[in-house]
């Protein structure tokens, strides 16, 4: 069933999120969605949490979705698709439907890390045959750049603005990918649109695994990151190369890093082009830069250790 992931082959496939949607120029989300759907060789039905992607892709009487799609509310994309998937199993069992269909939920970091975490955790624990995709743009972008539990330490957001007393966000990012791995589901991965082949291989792999799957995909937002409109791919690449967003997968409990940067870049390379971190480059906030680098080094070391200690069991995503 799996088709080759060559640009030539992919160019023949229909794009299932049509142009004309109203997401901002340079938004990472539609690129992520298109890659995910391009990598799917099965028919797919999607649910979508309230958020940028949802409000911009289906404004009555128009829809950008060429696949069956449902938006219910903010915090329940996982529960919603679990209902669709269960009805599919019920009707299939009764012989009323015979096609092989895959189920997917799209949510932003607010709808996934925060308000939707319970719904996601429940759906994963129940073992639905589904893939949850979090497009993580590291804040509540749809409502206007408020901090979420995915927002990096020190970032300037509208609810924790960098001021003369408080230097932006003063809490750690939640490691959702590890939280999902702790559910002992068969497949968890982190991906980035900059490494499209890696991302699409992971999606293809996920579809061949029965049960709940989770993918966390970084999705730059030039409005919230205060970056250039055409920098989404560059910034997601820097996120990977600085190990701010390491690319790895955990298959049946075995961790494998799927991309190791030849030379790990310093975190400032990722921070510098983004206005949300501008205040960190002043003398009094130097300690935050140092802390961010230390946090990343520690997590990267931990990940490498987790990955190498389980090397024997590791497998390739191809």
């Amino acid at each position, binding site marked *: 069933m799996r088709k080759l992931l060559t640009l030539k082959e992919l160019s023949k496939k229909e794009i299932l999120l049509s142009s004309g949607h109203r997401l901002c120029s340079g938004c990472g989300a539609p690129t992520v969605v298109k890659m995910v759907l391009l990598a799917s060789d099965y*028919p797919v*039905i999607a*649910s*979508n949490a309230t958020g940028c992607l*949802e*409000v911009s892709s*289906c*404004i*009555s*009487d128009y*829809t950008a*979705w*060429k*696949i*069956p*799609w*449902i*938006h*219910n*509310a903010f*915090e*329940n994309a996982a*529960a*919603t*698709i*679990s*209902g*669709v*998937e*269960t*009805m*599919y*199993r*019920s*009707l299939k*069992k*009764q012989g009323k*439907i015979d*096609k092989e*269909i895959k189920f997917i939920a799209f949510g932003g970091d607010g709808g996934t890390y925060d308000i939707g975490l*319970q*719904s996601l*955790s*429940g*759906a994963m*624990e*129940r073992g639905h045959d589904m893939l949850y995709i979090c497009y993580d743009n590291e804040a509540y972008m749809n409502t206007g750049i408020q901090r979420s539990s995915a927002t990096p330490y020190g970032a300037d957001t509208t609810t924790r603005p960098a001021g003369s007393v408080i230097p932006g966000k003063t809490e750690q990012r939640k490691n959702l990918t590890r939280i999902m791995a702790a559910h002992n589901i068969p497949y968890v991965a982190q991906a980035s649109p900059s490494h499209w082949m890696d991302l699409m291989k992971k999606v293809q792999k996920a579809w061949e695994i029965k049960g709940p799957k989770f993918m966390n995909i970084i999705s730059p937002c030039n409005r919230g990151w205060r970056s250039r409109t055409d920098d989404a791919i560059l910034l997601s690449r820097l996120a990977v190369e600085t190990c701010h967003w390491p690319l790895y997968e955990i298959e049946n409990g075995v961790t494998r890093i799927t991309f190791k940067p030849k030379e790990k870049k310093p975190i400032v390379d990722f921070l510098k082009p983004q206005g949300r971190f501008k205040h960190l480059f002043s003398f009094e906030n130097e300690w935050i830069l140092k802390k961010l680098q230390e946090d990343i080094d520690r997590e990267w070391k931990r990940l490498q250790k987790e990955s190498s200690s389980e090397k024997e069991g590791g497998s390739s995503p191809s």
Partner: protein
Amino acid sequence: MAKIVAITGNEAVAHALRQVDPDVCAAYPITPQTDMMQRFSSFVSDGLVKTELILVESEHSAMSSCVGASAAGGRVITATSSQGLALMWEILFIASGTRLPIIMPVVNRALSAPLNIHGDHSDAMGARDTGWIQLWSENAQEAYDNTIQAFRIAEHMDIRLPVMICLDGFIISHSIERMEYLEDEEVRNFVGEFKQLNPLLDLGHPVSYGPLILPDYYMEYRKAQDEVASKVSSVVLEVAEDFEKLSGRKYGLFETYRLEDAEIGLVIVNSAAGTSKDVVDEFRDRGIKAGLLKPRLYRPFPYKETGEALKHLKAVCVLDRADAFGGSFGPVYLDIATSLYQYKKKPILINKIYGLGGRDYLPEHAELVLNELAEIAKTGTVKSYKEYISVRE
């Protein structure tokens, strides 16, 4: 052939659900509903139904997955009480706004705080304007009959709205009563095959559910929903007529009891109506023209028909098992008052709040109210328009 049994309300409704045999059920435990879904789950485990269960982590996810399952294109049920219904509140509007025929028995229970697990109507009354159809049930038989009829009403092609079937927590859910079952096949034939409408699972016709609709069209959408709701009464009556042919039991939008020539009357929903009817009989025996009206289709409320049925009385008391605080009246009172407002000649209308958090409603309470109504009818004087009864001062 009807089968006569001694059964609790929860068991009766669980059997109705078994006989209908839905495609998907999402359930989360909450007292006093738990026992109903436990029973249904054992039907699943024993292979008596084809239903796929989703044992969710909250009522919010129960209703959310019901929305997904129903939009996918099949028959979907859940059940809840009290805090569970409150937690679903957000998604109740989405289920009705998306026009999904989900069926949900609500075993009525008080709301926190203070925490209380016993029967009153604050839960479902709080959800009365969520766009759901509400059918209220006096006893296990009515809860069973309403559950079966609910599927036909919800799935009617002119309606496609979700339905709550309300029954009193513990008083009905856990008390054993005499009841008549229909045969499994009779129920299945009555309910019929589920008819899909724009199912998500139809890959040939991909649909988008849950669009954003801004001020340019939102109001037209809501008006369309109001127009659909206005058709519910006639469908409820049509389904009741078919159900009477099958069961011999007659249902309407509401039940009137010795109301036609009555001068004083009670309006009361669910189990307390049974107690009240006995007291109405006692008053009739004493030559006092008492009567009773028991709402069944509470949402959408049949204002016109209810007003017509009550307008000739001299004095009416609406008994509410839920309150709107701070000088307002109970929810049923407000609806009855609205239904009578347009008439020049209309009864004096008073409101009693009773039975909150499972406080017993006894025949002597109905007697006190009816005595007060007789006095009001005679003198035209009202001491208090709203009062809590059977309560410590």
